[in-house]
Structure formats: C-alpha cells, structure tokens
C-alpha cells in the first residue's frame, strides 16, 4: 500500500512538474508533429490511403517515445542539478520506487503528444483513424504507456552514471521510431532487425494499437507489453542496486 501510494504521488508530482516545463511538454508535443507532418506529406505523395492511416497511428505513438527518451535519460541528472539526488537515495524507500514514477510520468506526457498528433492528422491532413475495437484500444493505450514508461525507467537506471545521459536518451529516438515499426513495416527492414524489435515493448504497443484500430487481435500484443514491461522493471530494480552501490563506493553520486 505504501509503495502504491509512493508510486502514485511520485507520478503525479513528476507529471505536474514536467507539464510546466516547456521543454518536456510543449516541445515533446511539437517534435513528433514535425516528423508526422513530413511523413504525412510523403505518404500522401505516394497516393496510398491505407499507408496514410498506418502512418497516422504510428505518428501518434511516436510522441510517447519522444517524451520518454530524452526526459528519462536525464531524469537522474535533473535530480543532481536540483540537489535532491542524495536526499532521494538516502530516503528509507527503495530508490527504484522513486525512479519508476519518473519513467511513467514521461510516458504519460506522451498522451498529450498522441492526442495532438491525432488531431493534427485529422484536421490538417484529413486522416480519419478508425477504432474498430474501442475496448481493446482502451486497454492497448495504457499498456503501451506503461511498458514504454518501464523502458524509460530502465534507461534512467542504465544511464544513471553518465553525465550526458540526455544525449544518449535523445540518440535512441530515431532508432526506436524506425525499428519498432511506427512508420515503416518491420518487413521492410533487414532480416537482422526484427529480432531486436521484438524485445522492445514499443513494437508490441504499436501492434496492439494498430490491431485495435483495424479490428484484429490485440490481446497477445497487449500481453507482450505487460510481460516486457515487467522484465524492464525487474532489470531496473536490480540495476538500481548496482548503480547506487558503485556510486557510493566511488563517491560519485552527486558529480555533475
């Protein structure tokens, strides 16, 4: 109960804080719209209406990853700058319970991006996205958000000791857009790429949302989102221990 409360309060606090940052909110919303606009022009030029819907759905989910990648990468650095990292680490609560809501909050900002991109596609490019399975869609979107948030948490832990983690987080933006099938079907990519895509939750989240939209079978994809999300959280918790132990041993926790 205590952990659930911490997760909830932590998420709300981080979400409110990020919502007030023009970089984490306004830019996170605009950024995928720029790329979506270019993609919409390209698919419209190609004259394939189905492909335009495919791109519309993909572009909507791109924003969730955009909001997560940079913000999660720099989550610990931000705490360092605020001077709160030591306090959080010294608190009796396990540090991963403090860190996980940051990943979830960054992914939640992605909801703004998603809505903005869908509205942009609808009103500027006339892309009417179908929702054949509303109930599945209602499950697929949170599953995607949670699993991407969990991946953000894992990134935050993995890059905790890098001073410029934001740059590494930012670097992951285009590759994930590309290999998780947001705008390009995996079948178009070289054969060695899809196995990498399969261990990334955004791939399954994207599939789940597409299947819900077109009336397919999204439940296996949703299940994969939850399964991979759980693995990320598990690895993140173990990683947190290792990172904190090393930071304490080298007295490098607050180095900026």
């Amino acid at each position: 109960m205590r952990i659930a409360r911490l997760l909830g309060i932590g998420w709300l606090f981080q979400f409110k804080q990020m919502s007030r940052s023009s970089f984490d909110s306004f830019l996170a919303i605009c950024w995928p719209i720029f790329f979506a606009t270019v993609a919409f022009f390209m698919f419209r030029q190609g004259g394939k209406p189905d492909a335009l819907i495919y791109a519309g759905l993909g572009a909507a989910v791109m924003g969730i990853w955009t909001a997560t990648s940079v913000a999660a990468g720099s989550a610990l650095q931000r705490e360092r700058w605020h001077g709160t990292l030591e306090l959080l680490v010294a608190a009796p609560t396990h540090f991963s319970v403090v860190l996980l809501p940051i990943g979830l909050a960054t992914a939640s900002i992605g909801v703004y991006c998603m809505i903005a991109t869908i509205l942009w596609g609808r009103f500027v490019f006339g892309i009417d996205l179908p929702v054949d399975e509303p109930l599945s869609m209602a499950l697929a979107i949170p599953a995607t958000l949670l699993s991407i948030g969990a991946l953000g948490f894992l990134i935050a832990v993995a890059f905790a000791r890098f001073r410029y983690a934001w740059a590494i987080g930012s670097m992951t933006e285009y590759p994930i857009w590309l290999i998780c099938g947001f705008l390009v079907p995996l079948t178009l990519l070289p054969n060695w790429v899809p196995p990498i895509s399969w261990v990334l939750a955004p791939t399954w989240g994207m599939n789940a949302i597409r299947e819900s939209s077109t009336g397919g079978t999204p439940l296996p994809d949703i299940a994969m989102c939850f399964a991979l999300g759980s693995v990320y959280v598990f690895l993140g918790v173990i990683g947190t221990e290792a990172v904190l132990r090393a930071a304490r041993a080298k007295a490098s926790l607050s180095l900026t």
Partner: protein
Amino acid sequence: MTSLRIFFIGGLMAYRGLINWLSPWIFIPTLVVAPIFQILLFVFIGRSAGVESDKFFVIGNAVQYASIPCLFSMTNAISGERYQQTLAYLLVSPAGRLSLFLGRAVPVVVNAMFVAAFSLVVTSLILGISIPPTTWPAIALAIAVSAFACTGLGLICAAIGLRVRETAVLNNVLFGLLLIFTGANVAVTELPEWMQWISNRIPLTHGIQAARQLADGASLADVSGLIATEFAIGIVYTVVGYQAIRLMERESRKRASVQVA
C-alpha cells in the same frame, strides 16, 4: 589586426569554452549517430511510401541536419555568455562587435560542414549509394554555403537568446520547421503554394537542391544560381542576426537586464 585576432582566435576560444556539445559524450550521440538514423528513418519511410530515391533522402537530410550545429552552437556561442555570467564583461570590452560576434560563427560553420559531410558519406556507404567522386568538391561547396546560410539563422536565435531563456525549445522548433519547409524529404514543388513561398526564403532549401543536382551529375555552373541564392539568403540572415544582436545589446543595457538569465 586586433579585429582579426578577435575574429579568429577569440571566436575559436569562445566556441570551445561555451559549446559543451564538443564533449564526445554529446558530440557522438547527437551529431554523429543521430543524423545517420534520421537519414535511415526517412529512407525507409520513403521506400514504404514509394516516393523518391534513397539518394534524395540521404542528401536532403544530411544537409538539413547541419542546422543542428548551426542553430544550437551559434545560439550557445553568444547567449551562453549569459549562463556563464560573462556577458557583462564581454559587452563592456572595447572589442569590435562585428569581429566579436561573427568570429564565433566560423567554427560553427566548420562543425556543421563536418556533420553534414560525415553523415552523407557514412549513409551513402551503408545504403550503397553511388555519388561520383568528381562531384564531391562541388557538393562540399554547396554544404559550406548552406551551413553559412543556416548559421545566419543561428545568429538570429542567438539574439533572441539574449532575451529569452528557452533557447533549446526555440532551436528545436526551428529545426522541425526546417525539416518540413526545406524540401529535405518532400520536394518543394509537392508542398502547398504558401509553404513553397516560405521554402524559397529560408536557408538550406537551395543548398539541398544544388547538392542533389550535383550528385545527379550536374556541373557547378549548372547550380551556380542555386548556390548564389543560398549565399544571398545567408547574407540577409547574417545581417539581420547581427543587427538583432546589437539591438538586444542596446536594449539589455537600457533595461539593466544584461545578465538576467
């Protein structure tokens, strides 16, 4: 002589001191790896949509990505003084403003040229795109002129950065707009007319067109008009940017807001 020293040595020192992106931990992810993946992303979107050739996207995005160093580095090279608390010392110095501010643009242009050329070469190799070696010097010229023109836009951002705080947001938004309007991924002729009007008046558009034509075998003489237009646009933006910096300097003195960050 002093002005030349400020222009070249001062410009380089300021650049090295203020651009923390030169750290390999930032430089490699953002200016080496990211442009390659941006190019690959649009190449595959292009294949999926069935439009244009791989070469079209490789050249368009390589040149367009030069805008990242042009915008971000140019802004930081000047407005970064605010954050280092050194702007007031700079502004009370008797140094000529032209050499002081424009000298910082030279390393920016060189960096942008490197980013564009490196990503162009690497992605050409990855995708097996053949660009005749004889055209490389002319393409390098098109890239240099494009980088210069975009640095002019960066100067305007630097001026704005002397007044507003969120320069990272501003630069990212401009990068996104350049992605749409310069024809890096969608030929300018495919854009609505009002967008074409803007495209023809911003940096990079003509440079990208020139680089594409050169890669397709055109001679330097064939694209001289495009390169001259790109250069002229660069001059206009540089003059506007420089004047904007001077205006912001005067205003910040008047309002005692020089160091307010």
